[in-house]
């Protein structure tokens, strides 16, 4: 199939997995398009400093994203960021993607790497008070809460490490966690527990945010007895993990109960010619390095698939 809008491979997602796939495919002279619903870099840009990416002593997530993007472009990969998907057809030999602006692209193979996003509580008031007392980034917004009382929601490493870092600014930090124990590593728990500015509300969660121009208080529900109580508070930081950006794939590829994409060791989904990589697949460890590895495997497997597909067509 020959057309300007036909690519050998379309990669959906512009994080480290998608960019790596783009680099490998384009370098192999496979005409490739990366479509990213967000900014190029995905969740990698959420990291101020990456100090454990082999070969690079220290780099910001933004810088590493730009390097990967430029590498992919250098090899001839087309990249479109901040697009909105409208239609995705994965069945059949020719895959089809239509964007909300009407642009239509087809491909021999698709690599899905839509990544994930920070989980929100979904409580009333959360969306309207975001940036007005509710934050998802301690390093960005911590200094707005100097000498103020805040809450941190979550019980993993991020929540406890950020609770400790926020004590540099806040006069008091209360960790609100839904379980009676933490999921964080022991060192993070110990550091938080030994900090005199930090207190804990276990087996509770925030069920509503109150305030008009800015956050003024929260409703806390106690899971032990179901009681709800309002507390005045200046700020809330939410660190309750990530969810896969796979809503648009429901009914199209096989997902597990957490809506993560199921793949085999070649990153092949249950649909022929459709591969997946990165944080949106079912796996245990989510790091830039693992996303890069997934993207590499998906690209190599997709290359092989495309090559065999073209051989079949030539022989037909």
């Amino acid at each position, binding site marked *: 199939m020959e057309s300007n809008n036909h690519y050998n491979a379309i990669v959906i997602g512009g994080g480290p997995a998608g960019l790596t796939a783009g680099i490998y495919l384009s370098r192999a002279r496979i005409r490739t398009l990366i479509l990213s619903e*967000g*900014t*190029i*870099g995905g969740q990698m*840009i*959420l*990291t*101020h400093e990456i100090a454990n990416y082999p070969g690079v002593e220290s780099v*910001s*997530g*933004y810088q590493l994203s730009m390097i990967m993007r430029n590498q992919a472009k250098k090899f001839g990969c087309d990249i479109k*960021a*901040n697009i*909105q998907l409208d239609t995705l057809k994965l069945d059949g030999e020719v895959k089809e993607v239509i964007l909300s602006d009407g642009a239509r692209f087809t491909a021999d193979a698709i690599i899905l790497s839509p990544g994930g996003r920070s989980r929100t509580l979904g409580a009333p008031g959360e969306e309207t008070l*975001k*940036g*007005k*007392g*509710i*934050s*998802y*980034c301690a*390093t*960005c*917004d911590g200094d*707005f*809460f100097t000498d103020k009382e805040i809450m941190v929601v979550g019980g993993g490493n991020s929540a406890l490490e950020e609770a400790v870092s926020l004590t540099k600014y806040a006069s008091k930090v209360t960790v609100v966690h839904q379980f009676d124990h933490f999921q964080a590593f022991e060192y993070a728990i110990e550091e938080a527990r030994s900090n005199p500015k930090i207190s804990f509300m276990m087996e509770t969660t925030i069920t509503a945010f109150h305030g008009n*121009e*800015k*956050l003024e208080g929260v409703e806390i529900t106690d899971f032990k007895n179901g009681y709800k109580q309002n507390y005045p508070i200046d*700020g809330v930081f939410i660190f309750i993990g990530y969810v896969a950006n796979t809503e648009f794939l429901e009914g199209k590829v096989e997902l597990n109960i957490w809506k993560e994409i199921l793949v085999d060791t070649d990153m092949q989904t249950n649909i022929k010619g459709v591969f997946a990589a990165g944080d949106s697949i079912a796996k245990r460890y989510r790091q830039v390095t693992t996303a890069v590895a997934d993207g590499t495997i998906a690209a190599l497997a997709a290359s092989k698939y495309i090559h065999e597909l073209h051989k079949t067509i030539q022989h037909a």
Partner: protein
Amino acid sequence: MLYTNLKHIETAADHQKFISENENVMICCGRMGPMCIPVYGIMEDIEDQYAHVKFADMEFDNPESHVIRNVPEVRGFMGIPFTMYYKNGKLVKATSSIQSKAQVTAILESEFAEAN
């Protein structure tokens, strides 16, 4: 220093000149952080599409950005970036923290609608 491809506003005087010389202006005031970079990226992507709007950034920690940080409309803002929309030199809309492309374009469409 903001490492974006947007126009950088460095001083309060530049800010005043920029908003008074252009009818429709969007300025994102932030840092090179995770809540700000996506907004800069959106602005870079839509710059050509919204040719009747002028886009720029300003560094949040630059003392000169008091022209954004201290206006009454951002009282209660506790998350960067502060994104400001000006029409004929007047502030018509301001948002706090990360925004999606849909949220940004909805404001551009409503505040800076082009006459048919």
